[in-house]
């Protein structure tokens, strides 16, 4: 019989400390704020689940959450199919491969706030290249500082520009890992291009696409810097996504309790959706 030795648990201790200091303890302070009211000076009053109730009932939160889901949904709907199409049309070998890969990776290397500033200037009606061209050459009224629709088009385009490459690179990695024999067999079996995509390429890309969607979901759901620099949440509140609203509440209004409660709800939604998606996508693999 094997003797059971529990000593190995001690080896986990360093990781436990690390996780405690960079995640658990900061998060506990947020939990602490979320159930209390404070006016500074380290004076706290017990508030229970009051803040949570207030946030969950507030129209402001509902509106921000709705905008957040709209934003994330739209960019996923555009970036995932677009990324797959670009990956499919990239060469599989030869001279152009490294060039395509570097060009694809470039937008991802630019810091978020720079991307926001770039697109801000780019689309300004009077001085931006695109803004000037649209307004003064084509005569289309396009002003993302005034028009909510223009603001939305701009942040969506910016995100697509910045992050489609991630989907492309992951999908491309999935595609090049398909052995030639699959394509040859499909040719011999008389499969159409659609059948090759549906029964060979898509199944082989499933795992990397799951990761790509997951990453893009989390990133876009938590997006802050780019829209903050670009539109600052405006015009009005039309592009105030969850994180922008959260920062307004925490730092602008100094409502630490409700902001903490909102952070936790926000975190729970991100975690819940990610978990649900990942479980649904991988449940077939376990069979």
């Amino acid at each position, binding site marked *: 019989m094997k003797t059971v030795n529990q000593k190995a648990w001690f080896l986990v201790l360093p990781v436990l400390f690390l996780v405690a200091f960079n995640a658990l303890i900061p998060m506990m302070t947020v939990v602490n704020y979320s159930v209390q009211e404070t006016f500074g000076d380290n004076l706290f009053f017990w508030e229970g689940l009051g803040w949570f109730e207030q946030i969950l009932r507030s129209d402001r939160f509902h509106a921000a959450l709705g905008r957040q889901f709209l934003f994330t949904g739209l960019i996923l709907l555009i970036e995932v199919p677009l990324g797959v199409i670009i990956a499919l049309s990239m060469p599989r070998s030869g001279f152009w491969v490294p060039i395509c890969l570097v060009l694809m990776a470039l937008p991802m290397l630019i810091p978020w706030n720079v991307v926001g500033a770039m697109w801000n200037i780019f689309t300004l009606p009077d001085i931006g290249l695109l803004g000037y061209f649209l307004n003064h050459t084509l005569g289309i009224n396009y002003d993302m500082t005034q028009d909510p629709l223009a603001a939305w088009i701009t942040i969506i385009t910016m995100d697509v520009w910045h992050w489609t490459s991630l989907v492309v690179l992951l999908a491309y990695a999935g595609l090049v890992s398909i052995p030639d024999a699959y394509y*040859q067999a499909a040719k011999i079996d*008389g499969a159409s291009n659609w059948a090759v995509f549906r029964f060979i390429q898509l199944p082989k890309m499933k795992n990397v696409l799951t990761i790509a969607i997951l990453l893009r979901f989390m990133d876009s759901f938590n997006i802050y810097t780019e829209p903050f620099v670009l539109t600052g949440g405006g015009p009005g509140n039309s592009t105030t996504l969850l994180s922008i609203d959260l920062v307004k509440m925490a730092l602008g209004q100094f409502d630490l309790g409700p902001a903490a409660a909102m952070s936790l709800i926000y975190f729970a939604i991100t975690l819940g959706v990610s978990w649900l998606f990942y479980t649904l996508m991988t449940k077939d693999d376990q069979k």
Partner: protein
Amino acid sequence: MAKITLSKLRHSYYPNPTGPEDYALKMIDLDWLDGGAYALLGPSGCGKSTLLNIISGLLVPSEGRILFDDRDVTELAPTERNIAQVFQFPVIYDTMTVRDNLAFPLRNRGVDEDRVKRRVAEIAEMLEVTDILDRKASALTPDNKQKVSMGRGLVRDDVNVVMFDEPLTVIDPHLKWKLRSKLKELHQRVRATMIYVTHDQTEALTFADQVVVMQDGEIVQIGTPVELFERPAHTFVGHFIGSPGMNILPCDVRNGGALFHGQHVTLEGAIQPGEGTRTEIGVRPEFVSLGTTGIEATVRKVADVGRHIVVETLVGDTRVAAIIKDRPPEVGATVHLDFQPQRTRLYRDGWLATSLAEAVQ
């Protein structure tokens, strides 16, 4: 089904081949008869997969033509040739069930559903996969996956040829034997032309009626397994087939006889006249015996492989292997080697150079 003719086929992967070394296939002229079981045997990189891909249409040869029953198919795409190919690694459509996998080539060709059902049931029964027809293909074991990919090739009853590209590479050894005999049985049932590419002599010799041995982009011999074993046309065939392979012993030719380390060796027949400088004696270890007279040799290694004993000896610095039944000599002992004359041949520049006749002194 069809007779397949390869006529003056050459292929190079370079756009502008300059010399023969640029050609993956040097010059192939070959007929595959309808309904035959062929093996294409050769070491890795000898051009056998290139040849296979040319027959299936995945590659267009640089020169020469391929005819299916006198119809030129050189430029036709794989789909139009009506062939089937089974690859080294099982190619299956992961998201489909076994049934849909088998039906896939038929459905793509618009065969009506009743017929699809009937054919799939027949093939499944032949391959013994009837009980897993509704399972998802991704969940199968490698041997069942390979069976399914074979099934996709066999399901069309009008295929001209079914080609197997080292199909047993990823199969566990104990299942290899089973699948190999299954293949042989399938060939007898469906009577389609089958070409089996392999570098494994056991697979080639058990599957095929005719074995085509290739080396460096050339066909060195075509024959039945027995012919290849008994009378290799080239030293390459001699040492590639057999375990251990044929002894190839450098020798001198003087006055129409062969001299090995100064001793006269009796050959199967007269030496044909011909050009060439390098002459070698070829004799299989099976036909070398240890006796009291003959060429003197020192025993270097003795290996008991179960059914027989392989004795490796040294004559000068030339290794000569012998296969004996029992009573092995000690390592280091001096023995005398006796070559069976009817099985001892002369090779000039690698090619057989004796004619089978009465043994001459």
